[in-house]
């Protein structure tokens, strides 16, 4: 006897017609559900996220089928991927049956589901079902036995677990009973190709045939109804993430990371800025809320959440979702809460880990813009004074703009007066210009440039704050003032190439200024110095020391610069030990998002958590590549009375190991 089976065996006369009708009902219910969801998404403003559709579709397909993003965190992610792959194969198997019965058999008289192909088909589907069953077990254990912290469960979660379990179990029973009544007797060799079905079949082998057929028919209908029920409820329950989470891969931004929507200051009719009500957000912001499955990964990595501040990126997204789904017009900011909005360091850890491609940071910035530009609100008076100082003096300290380049006195730097012929223009930044600790970094940098034979110029007092902290606090107007002033200064200096030791300046000049027509090459000192070393222009004769490297968020996560700083520390004699979170998973120092200008009044200091991690490595040097991080570490180490750990910038580490021979 050949290896095949009778499709719709024992399902009764006319069952197929009824099945297709029910399928239509299920699909109709699904379509209606998504139509309603779409009306919720459409409460947001338009935004084009469908350019380059082919590239987007490829990414969507690759992300979804590989389950890359969700499986990246194996705990929870791996069983999720297994469940997905299991059901995907089962769906494919079912579609193949449809193809066979309604296309190949009637029109081509060809039986695909036969012979060796059928054997493999049977085996694969059996194993897929088993895989899904196991994965479901692990996920249920995680949710209901281990009770993973941060994983919040609703009754709907239990319902969905039970529904999936019921679909899988009834599937196997239907298969088992059919096999008990047919293959087990007729073709036992074939039965072995369905190992799980075989096990179930042996349970029912003793039943009399009449009972077998009755049970099979009843369970076949039940299984079918459950499966169609599943399809129907997709948009009405969290199952909608089948479309929205995977779909969000399609809608991911294609702009460089951290690109914030521009504000048109030329439009004189515009009276609203930022987001204070749901209609101020884009449809994608609301769609994100539907893509979020509350897995809690963002929350577990959020520096603000981890140190007891009232911000959970996940809850921000959920709040937006519930407001969008309610009739409420405004109250967005109250629902999310000002303390949550101001607590964000824009470190991007949430977006980096999010398996659903949710963009948390942009929404928070939009709400900050509303608070700042529409109401003149700040996270604290000190931040308001800092913004005033940036506006007047060009630096957040309120120090004289004329003394901006005092640090350069007696150093091998020319201050631009007219044009410059220097190889690089060093955009010093506020901290390296004024903060005594960071001035040492500037000194080290120009000294090592001199050692490598690179001529360095600075803008001197024509340089102003790059505007980044103000922009991240929502003060787009002040940012724009600074940006335009700096761009003009670069132009009149006829600068050719800019290097900065500050990742915030770097990111702002290299990315954000682009939309204002600025197009000079900009580099961070980590990659610049690394090249000087690897090209042999800087000869190092390093002492050996133990070090750990703290990734600046705006270097690692925003600019993918992870390896170069480490190679540099090693080239300068450092033996590196990594902290528990490093690279793109690094923990913020607490100064990003304009928080450097504000006091950290809620929870415990974020920087303390990072220093705890650094100390655990046992290293003597905490290497940094950002003036904000360095300031945070210096202050905290002083406050803690810690003398074992020394925070140094890459430039300082390299400068002290230059071979003077």
């Amino acid at each position, binding site marked *: 006897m050949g290896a095949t089976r009778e499709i719709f065996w024992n399902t009764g006369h006319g069952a197929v017609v009824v099945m297709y009708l029910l399928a239509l009902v299920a699909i109709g219910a699904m379509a209606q559900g998504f139509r309603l969801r779409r009306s919720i998404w459409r409460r947001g403003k338009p935004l084009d996220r469908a350019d380059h559709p082919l590239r987007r579709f490829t990414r969507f397909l690759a992300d979804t089928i590989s389950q890359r993003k969700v499986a990246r965190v194996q705990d929870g992610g791996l069983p999720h991927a297994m469940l997905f792959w299991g059901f995907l194969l089962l769906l494919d198997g079912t579609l193949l049956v449809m193809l066979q019965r309604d296309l190949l058999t009637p029109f081509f008289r060809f039986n695909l589901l036969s012979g060796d192909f059928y054997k493999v088909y049977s085996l694969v589907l059996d194993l897929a079902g088993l895989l899904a069953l196991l994965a479901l077990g692990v996920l249920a254990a995680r949710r209901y036995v281990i009770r993973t912290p941060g994983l919040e469960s609703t009754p709907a979660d239990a319902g969905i677990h039970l529904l999936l379990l019921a679909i899988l179990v009834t599937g196997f029973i239907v298969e088992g009973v059919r096999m008990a009544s047919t293959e087990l007797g007729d073709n036992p060799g074939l039965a072995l190709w369905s190992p799980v079905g075989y096990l179930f079949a042996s349970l029912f082998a003793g039943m009399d045939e009449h009972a077998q057929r009755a049970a099979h028919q009843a369970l076949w209908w039940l299984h079918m109804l459950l499966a169609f029920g599943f399809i129907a409820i997709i948009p009405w329950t969290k199952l909608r993430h089948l479309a929205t989470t995977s779909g969000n891969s399609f809608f991911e931004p294609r702009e460089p990371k951290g690109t914030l929507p521009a504000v048109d*200051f030329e439009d*004189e009719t*515009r*009276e*609203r*800025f930022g987001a204070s009500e749901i209609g101020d957000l884009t449809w994608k912001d609301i769609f994100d809320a539907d893509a979020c499955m509350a897995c809690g990964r963002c929350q577990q990595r959020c520096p603000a959440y981890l140190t007891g501040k009232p911000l959970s990126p996940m809850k921000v997204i959920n709040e937006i979702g519930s407001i969008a789904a309610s009739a409420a017009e405004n109250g967005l900011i109250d629902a999310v809460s000002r303390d949550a909005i101001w607590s964000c360091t824009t470190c991007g850890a949430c977006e980096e880990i999010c398996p659903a491609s949710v963009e948390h940071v942009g929404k928070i910035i939009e709400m900050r813009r509303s608070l*700042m*530009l*529409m*109401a*003149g*609100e*700040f996270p604290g*008076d000190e931040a*308001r004074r800092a*913004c*005033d100082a940036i506006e*007047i*003096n*060009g630096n957040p300290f*309120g*120090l*004289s*703009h*004329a*003394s901006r380049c005092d640090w350069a006195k007696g150093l091998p730097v020319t201050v631009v007066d007219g044009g410059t012929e220097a190889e690089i223009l060093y955009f010093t930044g506020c901290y390296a210009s004024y903060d005594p600790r960071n001035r040492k970094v500037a000194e080290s940098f120009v000294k090592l440039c001199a050692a490598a034979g690179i001529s360095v110029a600075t803008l001197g*007092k024509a340089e102003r704050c790059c505007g980044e902290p103000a922009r991240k606090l929502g003060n*787009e*107007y002040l940012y724009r003032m600074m940006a335009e002033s700096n761009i003009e200064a670069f132009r009149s200096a006829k600068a050719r190439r800019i290097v900065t030791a500050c990742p915030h300046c770097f990111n702002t000049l290299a990315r954000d200024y682009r939309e204002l027509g600025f197009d000079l090459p900009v580099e961070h000192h980590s990659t610049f110095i690394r090249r000087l070393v690897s090209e042999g222009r800087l000869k190092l004769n390093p002492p050996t020391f133990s070090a750990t490297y703290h990734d600046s968020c705006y270097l690692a996560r925003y600019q993918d610069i992870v390896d170069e700083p480490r190679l540099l520390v090693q080239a300068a004699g450092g033996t590196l030990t990594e902290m528990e979170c490093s690279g793109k998973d690094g923990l913020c120092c607490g100064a990003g998002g304009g928080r450097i200008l504000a006091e950290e009044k809620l929870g415990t200091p974020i920087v303390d958590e990072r220093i705890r991690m650094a100390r655990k490595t046992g290293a003597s040097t905490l290497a940094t590549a950002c003036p904000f991080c360095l300031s945070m570490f210096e202050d905290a180490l002083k406050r803690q009375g810690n003398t074992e750990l020394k925070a140094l910038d890459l430039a300082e580490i390299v400068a002290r190991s230059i071979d003077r021979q």
Partner: protein
Amino acid sequence: MNILVCIKQVPDMEDHFVPNAAGRWFDEIGLVWRMNEYDAFAVEEAVRLKESLGGEARVTALSIGPVRVVETIRKALSMGCDEGVHIDDPMATERDPWQIASMIAGFAAGRGFDLIFTGMQSEDRSSAQVGVLVAERLGIASVTGITAFEWQDGSMTVERELEGGRKCRLGLKAPALLTCQLGLNTPRYPTLPNIMKSKRAALTVLSPESVGLESPKASSENFRPHEPNAAGVILEGDAETLAAQVVSILESRTSVLGPGGVR
């Protein structure tokens, strides 16, 4: 209700000040300018009062100086003032308080201001005279250095700080002039729509003569930048050595030990 706020544009006090060519005042080259801090309290208080009264109040912001002061007038508008008046006077920094007061009083006379707010003093000249001189010339009541203000339909209660942190409360009736002191309020940060509006707002520009500029009563003769104290000397060693060092310093650098000295 008609409110006038007098504001001055001053250099940022963190700047480096050097005498100008005449040596009578500081050179303006390289300075950055901002609204006098005390005047920001005045603007804020005026705008708060206007807001509490609803639509029936108008706040006029007035500044005297060269064209650069327009920026500060617009700042006041962006904080909520309704109208800007610029007395275009390139010589303003050289004027004495009497002259400044003569122009403000000349402008205010006959315009029926119920209240005039000014800063307690300017950060650069610090004469603290302009407010009271204006009140005197207009013949209205004035209170200097207020740290609290409460309006009750035509009359007001204000608080001012006395020496040693003591406070006193005064009641008076409009029209009146109040000079504002630190602690009165925290000036607001202008909202973007207001900044945009303030940029488009038309200002009234007047000449010093048209508002009755008078001759000065005093003139500034000489300006010297801050003279840093000589660096301190730290002596080290036992009492014997220290005493010997002190004697040698007194001998070499002073005359206290010489003829006619303490000895």
